[in-house]
C-alpha cells in the first residue's frame, strides 16, 4: 500500500466515519435519556435517503403513509391510557401532539411536493417527514415498558428493527437508490483529490455536533435532557417530564440520523435494509464512548469508518467480519473501564 492509497483510504474512512458519527451521537443521546439502545436509528437514516429519492423522482414517499399509520396507533394508545387513568382533560393536547401535528406535517409535505420544489426544500421535507417516526415509535413501543431493564428494552429494540425493515420493503420497495450529489465541487489537498461531498459530510458532522453541544450547554431544554439522563427520578422531582425529554431526544436523534442518511445517499446505494449495518457500525462507535460520551462516540465512529475503509481494501468480503470482531475487544475494554454497580436481573 502506497502512501497515496493510504491517504485516499483515510479520507474515505473519515467521510464514512463522519456519517456514522452523526448516528452514533443520536444513539448516545437516546440511550442516556431513555436507556433504550435504539438499534433502528440506521433504519431511520436509510428511510430518509429513500424518502429524498422518492421526492426527487416526484413520487410521494411511503414515509407519509408510515407516519399517518404510526400517528393513528400512537393516538389510540395515548387515548386509551388517558381514559384509563381518568385524565380526560389531557385528551385534546394528546390528540394535537400525536395526531394533528404529524398529519399537518404529512399534509404540508404533500402540498409542497406538488409545487415541484427546489433541492433545499426537498431536503427539509425529507427531514420533516422522517422526524415524527422515532417519537411515535417511542410512544407505541417503548413507553409501555419504560421501567423495564436495559436488556428488555434492547430486545424490543432489536425486534423493532426487524419490523422497520419489513415496513421499509413495504413502503419503499426493493430497489436501491442513489441520489444526486449535493455539490459537484472538488478540491485537491496535498496531492489527493477530495470531493465536495466528502467535505460536506465532514462539515455537516462538525456543525451538527457543535449545534448539539450548544443546545445542551446553553438552553434550558438541553439542560433538562441532561438532567433526565443523569437521574430520572431526580429530574422528575424538579418538574421535568422524562417522557417529554424522551420525545425531544428521539426528535433530535432522528434529525441527526436523517442528515446522515441524506449525506450518504449520493455516495452509497441505499436499500430499505441498509440501515442495519449503518446503525450497528455507528453503534460500535457509540460503545467506544461508553454509550455516555458524545465526543467519545464521534471519535469511535470515525475510527470505525477508517478501519472499515482499510479493511475493505485488504479484503472487501471480510470487512464486516473485521469490524464486528473488533467490537469484542472494545466491549471488554469498556466493561473494564466502567465501574458497574451490580444490577440484579429482573425476575
Amino acid at each position: 500500500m502506497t502512501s497515496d492509497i493510504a491517504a485516499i483510504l483515510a479520507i474515505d474512512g473519515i467521510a464514512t466515519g463522519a456519517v456514522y458519527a452523526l448516528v452514533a451521537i443520536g444513539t448516545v443521546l437516546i440511550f442516556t435519556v431513555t436507556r433504550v439502545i435504539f438499534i433502528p436509528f440506521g433504519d431511520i437514516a436509510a428511510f430518509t435517503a429513500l424518502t429524498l429519492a422518492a421526492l426527487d423522482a416526484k413520487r410521494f414517499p411511503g414515509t407519509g403513509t408510515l407516519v399517518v399509520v404510526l400517528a393513528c396507533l400512537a393516538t389510540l394508545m395515548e387515548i386509551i391510557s388517558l381514559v384509563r387513568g381518568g385524565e380526560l382533560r389531557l385528551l385534546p393536547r394528546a390528540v394535537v401532539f400525536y395526531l394533528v401535528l404529524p398529519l399537518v406535517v404529512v399534509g404540508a409535505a404533500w402540498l409542497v411536493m406538488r409545487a415541484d420544489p427546489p433541492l433545499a426544500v426537498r431536503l427539509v421535507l425529507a427531514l420533516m417527514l422522517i422526524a415524527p417516526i422515532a417519537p411515535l415509535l417511542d410512544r407505541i413501543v417503548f413507553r409501555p415498558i419504560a421501567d423495564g431493564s436495559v436488556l428488555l428494552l434492547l430486545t424490543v429494540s432489536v425486534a423493532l428493527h426487524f419490523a422497520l425493515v419489513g415496513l421499509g420493503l413495504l413502503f419503499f420497495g426493493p430497489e436501491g437508490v442513489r441520489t444526486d450529489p449535493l455539490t459537484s465541487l472538488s478540491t485537491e489537498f496535498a496531492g489527493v483529490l477530495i470531493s465536495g461531498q466528502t467535505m460536506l459530510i465532514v462539515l455537516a458532522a462538525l456543525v451538527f455536533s457543535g449545534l448539539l453541544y450548544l443546545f445542551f450547554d446553553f438552553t434550558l431544554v438541553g439542560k433538562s435532557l441532561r438532567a433526565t439522563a443523569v437521574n430520572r427520578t431526580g429530574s422528575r422531582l424538579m418538574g421535568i417530564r422524562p417522557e417529554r425529554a424522551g420525545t425531544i431526544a428521539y426528535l433530535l436523534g432522528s434529525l441527526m440520523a436523517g442528515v446522515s442518511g441524506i449525506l450518504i445517499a449520493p455516495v452509497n446505494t441505499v436499500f430499505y435494509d441498509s440501515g442495519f449495518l449503518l446503525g450497528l457500525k455507528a453503534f460500535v462507535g457509540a460503545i467506544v464512548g461508553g454509550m455516555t460520551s458524545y465526543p467519545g462516540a464521534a471519535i469511535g465512529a470515525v475510527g470505525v469508518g477508517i478501519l472499515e475503509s482499510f479493511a475493505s481494501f485488504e479484503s472487501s468480503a471480510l470487512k464486516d467480519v473485521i469490524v464486528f470482531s473488533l467490537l469484542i475487544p472494545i466491549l471488554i475494554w469498556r466493561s473494564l473501564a466502567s465501574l458497574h454497580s451490580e444490577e440484579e436481573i429482573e425476575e
Partner: protein
Amino acid sequence: MTRLHIRLAAIVAVLCLATAPFVLSPFSITLMNYIGIYSLVAIGLALLTGVGGIVSFGQAAFVGVAAYATAWVSALNGYSPWLGLVFGVALTCGVATVLGVVTLRLQGHFLSLSTVAWGLAIGFLFGNVEGLGRFNGISSIPPISFGWIVLTSSAQIYFLIWGIVVAVLVLGYNLLDSRLGRAMRALRGGNTLVESLGINAFRIKLATFVIAAFLASLSGWLYAHMSRFISPGPFDASMGIEYLMMSMVGGAGSLLGGVVGAAIVTLLKNSVQDYLPLIAKGASGQLETVAFSALFILFLQWARQGIVPFVARYLPKAKRDRPQPAPPLPRRVQPKPGELLLKVDSAERRFGGLIALNNVSFEVRSGEIVAVIGPNGAGKSTMFNCLTGALRVNKGEIVFAGRPITGDAQSRIARAGVARTFQHVKLRPRMSLLENVMLGTYARTHTGLFAGAFRLNRREEASARHEAQTQLERVGLGEKPFDLAGNLPLGNQRILEIARALAADPALLVLDEPAAGLRRQEKLRLAELLRSLRADHLTILIVEHDMEFVMSLVDRIVVLDFGSKLCEGAPAAIRSDERVQEAYLGGVA
C-alpha cells in the same frame, strides 16, 4: 399433583410424540421436525437467558458453525455424518469456550451486545469464505444412517430429532435440580451472591454458555442432514432473534417453554405465511416480518413471563416429600474455642482521595460474637467488603484461621469458612426455602455436570437436602421447606440467609447489618437466634448500626469513626466511652 402424575403426563406426551408420524400428514411431520430442531436451540437459550440471565442474540451462529462443520466433513470431504457430528460439536463448543472466556466477564448489556457482535461476525463469515460455497451454500449433504437404516424421509429422522429433544429435556431438568443447576439458577442474583456461596460465578456462566452452544450444535447437525442443503440465510442475525423469541414466548427459564415456544413461533410463522396473503395481496414476505416482530413486541410488553410459567400457575402444586434423614455431609475441622480466628492488621482502603479505612486492626477469637459499629460513613461496609473479598485493601493484611486471605477472590474466602449475609437480602425468590439453603452446601458437595444430569448423585443430594432441612429447623423455618423464599416477610428472609450461611458449615459467620429494616419483634427473634448459635460455639462478626441490638448481644465491640478505629472493648465500657458518645451524639457540651 404428585410425582406420579407428572411422570404419567410425561409418558403420555412421549407416546403421543411416538405415534405422531403414523397419524400426521408428511407436511405436518416436516413441521414437527423443524419444531424439534428449533426446540433444541430454544432449550439452550432457556438455560442461558432464562436461568442464567445471559441474553444471547447469537445462538444462530452456533447452529451455523455446527451445520457448516458437518456439511464440510460429509458433503465436501465424503466422511460419515457421525464424524460430522463429532467435529461439529467439538468445533462449536471450542468456539463457544473461546468466546465465553473472552466475553463472559462483561457486565449486563455489554455482554448481550457482544453476542450481537460475534453473531454477526460469524454470520458474515459463512457467506464470505471460499471453501464454504459462499452465498450459494453447500448442497448434497448425505443423510444420517444407522447401519443400513438411512434416514432419508422426514418420518424417519423425526424419531431421531424428537428422541434427542426428549433426552435433552430429561437431562436438563435433572441438571437444574442438581448442585450445578442450583448454582446456575443463582446466577441471576448477581456475582456477589454467587461468589459468597463459594461458587466460581465465571465458571458456572461458562458452563451454561457452552451447554447452550452444545444444544445449538446438535440442532445445526440435525438441520444440515435433514434439509440436505445449507446456505448462510438460516444462521443470520434475524434467526438469532427468532430463537430468543421462541425461548421468551415459551417462558424464559423453563426448558419445556423452549419446546412450547419453538412450536408456537413455527406454527404461527407458518400460518402467517398462509393467511397474510389473503389479507394483503402481494405483500406477504415483508408483512410477515412486520407482523411477526409486532407480535413479539406486544408479547414483551404484555406477557414477559412467557406461556409455560403462566399456565403452571393454574396447575395444582406438586407435592413433595420432606427431606428424609441421610448421612451427614462432611464437616470442616472447627477451630478450638478461644483460638485466634480472624486478624485484621492495619488495613487501609482508599477510594481516590478518600480514605475509607485508615490503619484499622482488630482480632476475633473463636467462639465470640464481635460487633463492628460506627455512625454513618464510618467505614463499616468497606471493612465488611474487604473481609469478604468484595473489595481489596490497599495496605495491611487480613489473616483468617492462620492463612492470609488478603486479596483472595470472594469464592475462595467463602470456601475457607467465612459465610456471610447481606444487608439488602439476596435470596432467590423463585426458589424454595430448601433450595435456597441447599445453595449454601455448594462448597461442601462435589457433584459435577454429568453426575447431575444423569442423576448419579443421589446420595450426596440426599445428604445436602437433609443438611438444608436441619439448618432450616435450627433457625425455626423448618415448617414449610417448599414455600418460595420470595413469599417470606423481610425478618424471615434475613433468618433464611443465616440458615443458608450455616449450611456452608462456616468457621466464621459475618452478618451485614442484620437488624436493618426489621421490626422490634423481628429484632428480638434474630438476637435470640444469634445467642443460640453462640451457644453452639459459632464465631460471629456483626457489622451493625443499631446500638441497642448490639449491646445486649455481643462479647466485644470495635468502634469505627471516619475510617479509623476509635476504641474497642466490652459493651459496657463502650457505652460509657466519651469518644463513642461524641461520635454518635456529637460533643458533650
